[in-house]
């Protein structure tokens, strides 16, 4: 694939109002083939880069983001102004050390932060909406491989991903086995389990049940399915936490009131918190992107892609693997990681695995867990 570098000014604004990231954006010159059999023309890949690429181009670490993450791994989010989503992990002297590594974080295909997604203009100039083809995790990685080609990167010192980012890391390791030297996946699975598919279906149905969704053609109508997207986010957010962390943070405490109102206001702090999470999410994320990205995750089954045997996915891999899970993560429980590790063992791949103890549930991979920093730094150090 060949690509053209777009200058920031030549970027076409997304059809959604404000969601544009101040990142580098590349447009693929060739159509991107997709697992569905369709192909996408004029695909754009937005990315952030940190550190300096070595002359030998042998210090590149690819960081892949989670469902609603973005390329701003260690730079402020352009809409919320909050620090990058893995600011604590990526930076000078940090576990993924930008003094040593050239860290690349692309926005996934299907997203709304600069890479092509359902809110982007189709060849007819109107937003794709539901005309956007259903994509897979492998399609996301395919777009990233095209980006690497343009940047002249043909080996990766490391590939690092948590949650859906880890799915991308595994997909890359399985389908482009010559590229990565180290693969680090956190709080992840090689096969999306039924429970996770179920939760994501709830989220999608909430969006599609919102009349403002309008069959996905809400762009430019002045309305968007914010209520549905907020409910989707609230439901998903619960799955990212743990009962212990919710109890500690909120317990049964009431929100700015002395007693229950015998009404349906957010009486409890936890209700207020979730409503806030849902509402603020709609300001930074596109509902259709949420549909497409969660669909890609529910389709993710690395074993199925490789004749039903997960070990087959890694037989050609030359990489060292490190798999990390958390004891309170009930969305991607340790058992999922163990299954992956057993497959890597069966494939003869060098693999390290550790279940870390952290109180924050699935979100532990994003939060203050010193043991995680230590393992990430240690794994990437040599």
């Amino acid at each position, binding site marked *: 694939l060949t690509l053209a570098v777009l200058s920031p000014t030549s970027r076409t604004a997304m059809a959604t109002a404000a969601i544009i990231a101040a990142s580098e954006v590349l447009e693929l010159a060739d159509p991107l083939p997709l697992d569905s059999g369709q192909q996408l023309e004029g695909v754009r890949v937005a990315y952030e880069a940190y550190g300096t690429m070595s002359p030998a181009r042998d210090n590149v670490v690819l960081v892949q983001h989670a469902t609603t993450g973005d390329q701003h791994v260690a730079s402020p989010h352009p809409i919320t102004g909050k620090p990058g989503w893995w600011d604590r992990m990526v930076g000078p002297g940090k576990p993924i050390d930008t003094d040593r590594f050239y860290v690349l974080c692309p926005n996934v295909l299907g997203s709304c932060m600069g890479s092509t997604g359902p809110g982007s203009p189709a060849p007819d100039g109107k937003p794709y909406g539901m005309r956007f083809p259903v994509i897979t995790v492998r399609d996301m990685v395919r777009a990233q491989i095209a980006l690497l080609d343009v940047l002249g990167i043909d080996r990766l010192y490391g590939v690092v991903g948590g949650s859906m980012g880890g799915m991308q890391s595994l997909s890359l390791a399985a389908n482009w086995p010559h590229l990565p030297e180290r693969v680090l996946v956190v709080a992840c699975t090689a096969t999306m389990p039924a429970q996770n598919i179920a939760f994501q279906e709830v989220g999608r149905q909430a969006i599609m049940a919102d009349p403002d969704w309008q069959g996905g053609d809400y762009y430019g109508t002045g309305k968007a399915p914010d209520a549905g997207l907020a409910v989707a986010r609230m439901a998903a957010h619960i799955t990212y936490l743990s009962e212990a962390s919710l109890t500690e943070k909120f317990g049964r405490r009431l929100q700015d009131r002395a007693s229950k109102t015998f009404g349906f206001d957010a009486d409890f702090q936890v209700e207020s918190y979730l409503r806030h999470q849902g509402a603020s999410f709609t300001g930074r994320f596109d509902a259709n992107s949420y549909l497409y990205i969660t669909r890609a995750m529910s389709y993710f089954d690395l074993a199925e892609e490789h004749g039903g045997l997960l070990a087959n996915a890694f037989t050609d891999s030359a990489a060292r693997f490190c798999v990390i899970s958390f004891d309170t993560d009930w969305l991607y429980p340790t058992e999922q990681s163990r299954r992956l590790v*057993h497959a890597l063992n*069966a494939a003869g791949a060098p693999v*390290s695995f550790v279940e870390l103890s952290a109180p924050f549930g699935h979100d532990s991979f994003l939060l203050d867990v010193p*043991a995680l920093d230590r*393992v990430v730094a240690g794994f990437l150090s040599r």
Partner: protein
Amino acid sequence: VTEVETQLRPDLALIAGHVAKGARVLDVGCGDGALAQALRDDRGCNVHGMEIDPANVAECVEKGLSVIQGDADRDLAFYPDGAFDYAILSQTLQTTMRPDRVMEELLRIGRRAFVSFPNFAHWRVRTSLFWHGRMPVTRLLPVAWYETPNIHHLTVADFRAFVAERGIKVEDDWYLAGDRLRGKSVANFRAEHAIFLLSR
């Protein structure tokens, strides 16, 4: 014997000295990875480890070793037959729920197995039991009965009988007391610690 080997615990140094160069090795219960590191750095082995304690696993990962957090009783089942030239189980057999099954797994996964364990028939242990009627607390068995991880104590004689019953071949055996090699005769009385090299 290299510098790293001399810094190893005596039983580990002995095992390290008898692993063929460049071999594929699985170290079960690898702890902080000292043996695995010596095998990799000094003997060019392709070493994998299994360790139950996450803090130890983290230390191994920092050393660049491939170590998975796992339990010998449960997780050996997931390795293919004959995947390793050697499977090593050092000072761990007596802590497993089912030492017999763990032994079978070791010899299924590895073409050969090193197994080392503290000898419960060492004269100090016998003395403690005989004179005091108490479970022994010794240098190699430093923890009281109620909190010891060693739930299946065994003796050199027990182990010899076990491998004979199972048709397991003893390729070599070594006995240590006070960190020094001792003769094979009356080992069941004089050895604090036994190391066996086994095969099918």
